[in-house]
């Protein structure tokens, strides 16, 4: 309906395989990034940043990471929480060990570390498939959480067993610590999200992505036509791990500032991120964003309605939240097993063919 594609033709393969081949989509994308980078920073305040934007940005990174593993490569993982913890603690150790280095690199390095850990726990995927693998990744979840709980070195022997993010700056602007500016933290995370999204897109639209999807769709056939399963799966774990690690690092250093591993990076975190990509849509970058947005906004919404308007006690609201999220997930899976991304795709197709039905 809004699409005008006549005359929008491609004369090079580069143009044909670009991220947004359709002009209209491309412009929409420019518009969104314009708003995200040049408008929002000037209008947001602490509440919006902490309640919505930071969690959304950071979970999006995690969701993209997990989506690469689950949605693109078909390796189900329930260890996301644990891997985020690795990112967080990795970042913490780096921040405290090399205060002079920019936090930017700490976060990146934390991602790197996580991807190594992720690969270690991914190795069994060569032998184990499906649910067995899913459960196996729980090993990572519990072991890692236990590790950060029990080995004092990781939390620098602090009495509380917590880790607290010291103040760090980028270009002299504080992005971690108690007194940060809303826009600063927002932009800091936004930059990471943008980088991650671009990387993910590039990987998934090219050879690597096809290799992953081949493994996902039919691993045996894939191997017979020349896909090296080891390389494919390991690379998926590595990339996924990197993203998840980065998100974990940001989650701790920028968003929370202080973390007690058990409650922040527990099994529920793993499921939360998994829900995000299921609801958003497996095998879709857009889906990762949509899912993250959905599950970040929903609780905020519920809280505002129940506590704010109906004046319920918060604990009840929390229970109801559980109930509703659970219900929603089920309804979603029944209505559209392929998630928001699929709805989006269908809608887009309809708009492109408008006024024709097909």
């Amino acid at each position, binding site marked *: 309906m809004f699409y005008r594609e006549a*005359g929008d*033709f491609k*004369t090079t393969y580069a143009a044909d395989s670009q991220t947004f081949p359709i002009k209209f989509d491309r412009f929409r994308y420019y518009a969104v990034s314009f708003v995200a980078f040049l408008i929002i920073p000037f209008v947001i305040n602490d509440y919006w940043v902490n309640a919505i934007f930071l969690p959304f940005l950071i979970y999006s990174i995690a969701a993209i990471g997990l989506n690469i593993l689950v949605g693109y490569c078909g390796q189900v993982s329930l260890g996301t929480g644990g891997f985020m913890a690795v990112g967080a603690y990795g970042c913490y150790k780096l921040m405290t060990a090399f205060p002079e280095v920019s936090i930017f690199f700490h976060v990146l390095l934390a991602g790197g570390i996580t991807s190594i850990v992720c690969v270690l726990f991914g190795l069994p995927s060569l032998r184990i498939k499906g649910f067995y693998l899913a459960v196996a990744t729980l090993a990572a979840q519990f072991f890692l959480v236990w590790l950060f709980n029990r080995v004092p070195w990781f939390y620098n022997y602090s009495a509380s067993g917590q880790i607290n993010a010291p103040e760090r700056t980028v270009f002299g602007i504080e992005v971690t610590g108690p007194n940060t500016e809303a826009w600063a933290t927002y932009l800091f995370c936004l930059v990471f999200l943008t980088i991650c999204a671009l990387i993910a897109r590039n990987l998934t639209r090219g050879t690597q992505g096809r290799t992953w999807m081949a493994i996902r769709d039919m691993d045996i056939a894939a191997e017979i036509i020349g896909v090296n399963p080891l390389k494919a799966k390991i690379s998926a774990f590595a990339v996924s791990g990197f993203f998840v690690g980065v998100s974990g690092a940001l989650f701790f250093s920028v968003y929370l500032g202080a973390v007690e591993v058990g409650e922040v990076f527990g099994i529920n975190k793993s499921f939360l991120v998994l829900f995000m990509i299921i609801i958003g849509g497996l095998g879709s970058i857009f889906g990762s964003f949509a899912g993250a947005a959905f599950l970040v906004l929903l609780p905020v919404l519920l809280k505002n309605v129940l506590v704010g308007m109906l004046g319920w006690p918060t604990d009840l609201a929390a229970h109801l939240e559980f109930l509703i999220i659970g219900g929603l997930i089920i309804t979603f899976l029944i209505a559209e097993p392929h998630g928001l991304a699929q709805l989006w795709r269908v809608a887009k197709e309809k708009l492109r063919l408008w006024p024709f039905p097909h």
Partner: protein
Amino acid sequence: MVQSSQATGGLASIPALLQRNADQHGAKAAYREKEFGIWQTWTWADTEKEIEALALGLINLGVAEGDFVAIIGRNRPYFYWSMVAVQSVGAVPVPLYHDSAADEMAYVLGHCGAQYAIVEDQEQVDKVIEVQDQLHQFTHMIYIDPRGLRKYDHHQLHQFSHIQDQGRAARDEWITDLKERRSKLTYDSTCVMLYTSGTTGKPKGVVLSNRNIIESAKNACEFDKLNAGEEILAYLPMAWVGDFIFSIGQAYWTGFCVNCPESPETMMTDLREIGPTYYFAPPRVFETQLTNVMIRMEDAGGFKRKMFHHFMDHAKKVGGDILDGKPVGLMDRLKYSLGNALVYGPLKDTLGFGRVRVGYTAGEAIGPEIFEFYRSLGINLKQLYGQTEASVFITVQPDGEVRADTVGVPAPDVEIRIADDGEIFYRSPGVFVEYFNNPDSTASTKDAEGWVATGDAGFFEEDSGHLRIIDRAKDVGKMADGSMFAPKYVENKLKFYPDILEVVLFGNGQDRCVAFINIDLTAVGNWAERNNIAYASYQELAGHPKVLDTIQNHVETVNKSVARDPMLSGCQVHRFLVLHKELDADDGEMTRTRKVRRVIVADKFKDLVDALYDGAPTVSTTTEVTYEDGRKGSISATLELRDAKVVAVTHQQVAAE
């Protein structure tokens, strides 16, 4: 016709225009072809090099000035280059219909004595080889797609790219010759020879000079203000004069870009991708497209369908006027622009007409509804009247004066006069040189002053000065009672129904008219599905009583409207039948441009005509058919003959006096 090439700034030939474009628009796209998934593009500079290489290659191969070079294939840049390359070396390009059977080709190749042929692929090569023994003068053949040809004897068979390579290699040897030959080309040297698939008898080779082509192209471009920015999609047969004028004449004159689709199946998607700004199609294409639109909208949800029809009605009301710049109420304009956002815009876009500035339809009369439909969407679709002998343009509709029932005013530099018997004559710079090797028919068509008989009957409307075509002059006859018999007039009225594809009306010299009818398989088939009527074949569907009923209704409504016209009220259809097979070019019942050869049809189906007149309720017949692969077969059927109500004509006598 004492114009000289001064009028066109010394650009006396297509190759000359090529040189100019290469200089002026060097970096601008000249040709695009969807191949290997993207639009491969050649700028004018590239084109100039490609053509030069080919030309040199041709000289190298021994092509001499005045030789005839046949060109057989679907629209591809290579063939357009070939045409110009052939011209550059002083030879004459002769494009053929690539879907015509071997023996048809044999005739044309033999008639013009072609020594060379540039063809597309194995299929065409095989066809030519099959008839080669009938062609004594034929020597070399050049093919573009090497697939499956490697094992052929290559003594006289060459790959296009190799010829070009040889040309490049031999540049030093031949470039001077090429330049010399090019410079010899004048405004009166032959530009191209096109064979008209005459509705009767063997095709005739129409010789068109550079003057004909360039002058007509130039005039037409100025008439519609075409410029180098236009995009066109070349998909109509290359052997047809229209394609030559648009894709060569106008393209070279203005320097706009010619786009070639990837394959017939992808034609529609390619059309949408390119979104031409200047578009030409025969009525048939618009008809089928409209039918598809309606069919597709049938499947749409209730709301959408309502919205669609609601706004289409509004468009019918004001769309045309808005396009013609006539005054329209503000509210209507607003509603129209809303409709444009919701329906017209998207629809045009999905159909690929999103960017069309000027669109033409010609060759046959187009149904008013169809015509209005496209115009009401805001597509500037116009009609023109022309023929090969005139290098297309005889009359055209100027913007703002567009109507379904006329073909517009005389094109620039065209003089027209109507003979007493109503036949239309014209004279223009576009008038052809001669019919090749056929002085008699040349003389019979074109007189000493250069007036050419169109063979069509028509008249100018006093008020508007627009030309109206009644019918082909030779088809116009007299009924037994002396009243006028103009089959086309009635046939068109019937053909405007989406479920009627072809009609052949008989009645010359008879006391009443009868008709053969072909149903449109797409439309009727779809209708059948919706009313779950099962059918196995065209024949079965055509014989279905329900179908016959609908057709009968159409016939009777048409009879009513025919009766209203005093001159032609005698032409009402008294009896009709729905043919058991589609009229087909392969069976010689139609021309390659899908015009009915009524004489041939008449005697091929003589038994049916007789049956229609002797009043039998049914008739059994057997007909020979030709399959795509050339095999012959025969189908037999028993057809039901229907009587159609006719309106008793009272004032007819009055009209006659």
